[in-house]
């Protein structure tokens, strides 16, 4: 089954004529993703790579191509407008790659997508991939393998490292979801765990968290109460100093809160198999799968 994206996903790329947008739209096409439309205001009527129609508005793109998912590469100053436009145009999933959106803007965007009943992934994330079916994001497609492990992560390259380790121990992935490294994001660990819970293809889930906020603690709470599939986790930033933003806008320990230690304790008390070292994520997964059998 997989979650969020599959063979039926039809993608409209907002910002398809930009440098990043065009580069990654091509990579998604190469992977086999159905990119059905692009949107760049003022360039409606043109074609991307002589085959993908470009529209001025998402509304038109959806009407003409039946796109059901939007992939956003719009610069930070305009990204929130793009998210809201997508949410108001009839797609049911929005994946926003953009890094650097002001959080006060994101608070409004999050309210808006919730109001419209549309799911948002990101911003500041690598996107979503269901290996062998569809890639809606910027992750390298060829490192993935179709399989039974769900991945949820606040990071980019650390997710790829995790995927490589999952493959090394002989497993593939059902869907990998990069939820983003910002303080305000569209979907959190719990939102995605709920989807993996119902997904018959997913037999276990790997969570990649990091310092800052309490999303991992909330995930632990949810897992304890109602998630029965085995869960493996790694929390990055065990050696991070307090008060410093570690690259990601959301990766900061404030007022002594949001430390890796707190998160690891919460997850362990919920029965999650926590890999202490980032080199042992794959091995920890094997351990978790064996124990559950």
């Amino acid at each position, binding site marked *: 089954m997989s979650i969020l994206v599959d063979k039926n996903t039809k993608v409209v790329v907002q910002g398809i004529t930009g440098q990043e947008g065009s580069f990654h739209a091509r990579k998604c096409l190469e992977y086999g993703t159905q990119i059905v439309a692009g949107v760049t205001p003022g360039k409606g009527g043109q074609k991307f790579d002589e085959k993908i129609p470009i529209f001025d508005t998402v509304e038109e793109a959806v009407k003409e191509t039946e796109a059901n998912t939007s992939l956003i590469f719009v610069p930070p100053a305009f990204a929130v407008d793009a998210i809201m436009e997508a949410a108001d145009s009839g797609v049911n999933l929005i994946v926003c790659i953009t890094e650097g959106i002001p959080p006060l803007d994101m608070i409004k965007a999050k309210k808006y997508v919730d109001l419209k009943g549309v799911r948002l992934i990101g911003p500041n994330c690598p996107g979503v991939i269901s290996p062998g079916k569809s890639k809606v994001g910027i992750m390298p497609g060829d490192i993935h393998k179709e399989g039974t492990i769900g991945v949820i992560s606040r990071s980019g390259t650390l997710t790829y490292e995790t995927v490589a380790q999952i493959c090394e121990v002989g497993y593939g992935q059902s869907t990998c979801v990069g939820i983003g490294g910002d303080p305000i994001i569209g979907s959190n660990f719990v939102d995605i765990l709920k989807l993996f819970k119902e997904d018959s293809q997913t037999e276990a889930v790997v969570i990649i968290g990091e310092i800052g906020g309490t999303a991992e603690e909330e995930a632990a709470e949810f897992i304890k109460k109602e998630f029965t599939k085995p869960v493996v986790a790694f929390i990055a930033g065990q050696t991070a100093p307090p008060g410093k933003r570690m690259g*990601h806008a959301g990766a900061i320990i404030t007022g*002594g809160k949001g430390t890796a230690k707190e998160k690891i304790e919460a997850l362990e008390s919920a029965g999650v198999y926590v890999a202490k070292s980032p*080199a042992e994520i794959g091995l920890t997964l094997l351990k978790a799968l064996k124990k559950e059998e």
Partner: protein
Amino acid sequence: MKVHEYQAKELFSQYGVKVPKGNVIFSIDEVEKVYNELGGGKVVVKAQIHAGGRGKAGGVKLVNNLEECIEAVKSLLGKKLVTYQTGPEGKIVRKVLIEKASNIKRELYLGMVIDRSKNSLVIMASTEGGVEIEKVAEETPEKIFKEYIEPCVGLMGFQIRRLGYKLGFEKDKLKDFSKFLNGLYKLFIEKDCSLVEINPLIETVEGEILALDAKINFDDNGLFRHPEILELRDIDEEEPAEVEASKYKLSYIKLNGNVGCMVNGAGLAMATMDIIKYAGGEPANFLDVGGGANVEAVANAFRIILSDKNVKAVLVNIFGGIVRCDRIAQGILEASKIVDINVPVVIRLQGTNADIARKMIDESGLKFYTAKGLKEAAEKAVELAKGGE
């Protein structure tokens, strides 16, 4: 981005949020003028550094006359102040705020932050001011009052009244409190703050509501639309290597260990620091060299990492996906011709074409160690760092 207390208070004033009368000085010659402008009498002398805990560390002094004021400024200006937030190395005081002393009737707490799990701006207030608010939250959470702001409607009158009554303001003071809180909220929204904190907020014997202290952090993502805020940046308060790195758009944070790290991606960079610790070493830095890790970025990253003289070995950990490992290896080899690398370097490339990349580096004749696994790479780097001491 952080600003000084005196800068935060200037912004407060612009938004009608009352603060004690005062002025900042940069040299001892200015003390007399500022003291006299305040009308003499009791004043408070406050060291201006980007760190909390100044009061307990002796950075805030109450004085009675001009002579004492000059003495107090002399004891602070140009001196090192060590607080629980500065670390043992402390911070040099380059600016001092001189303020009219207030007749404090009671001390309260007021803070505004973004609540990440509720996706909302929250105002927090407490009758327990002047103490560590984290402690209050832990020991007596019932003494902290919260109001969540609906982004579509903003801060409402009933929320201000609710907080005002809980904080124990008399009926005739509510109007002042309303003006104070509305000003603060407007400032937060208009300037893209990530935190505004007043501890303590005071009510004076004369009945005034004043921000006795002021802390503002601005969200870095919002700075592009606030050139006036960027001008408040004080580079003296930042780590020089971090300032240098920001010029090259590299995300770098200096730490205290001796194993330098160069990694693509923030999450993997943190994980790399963690595994160095796990292997028995201490990371010297956090550094995200960017997704593609091109020649220029790698060369600049090497320069910045090696500018820290504690670094005895460097671990390069790059995941090559869209930009393949062989391309990255080529970039590292070219960068190594530009920069003089005087410590052992362990390179671990993972992802597409990792085997080819390793071979390229091994056959380059340059003194780089390659490693396949993350654990193996970290252990090698830690061992080399120990040998170099």
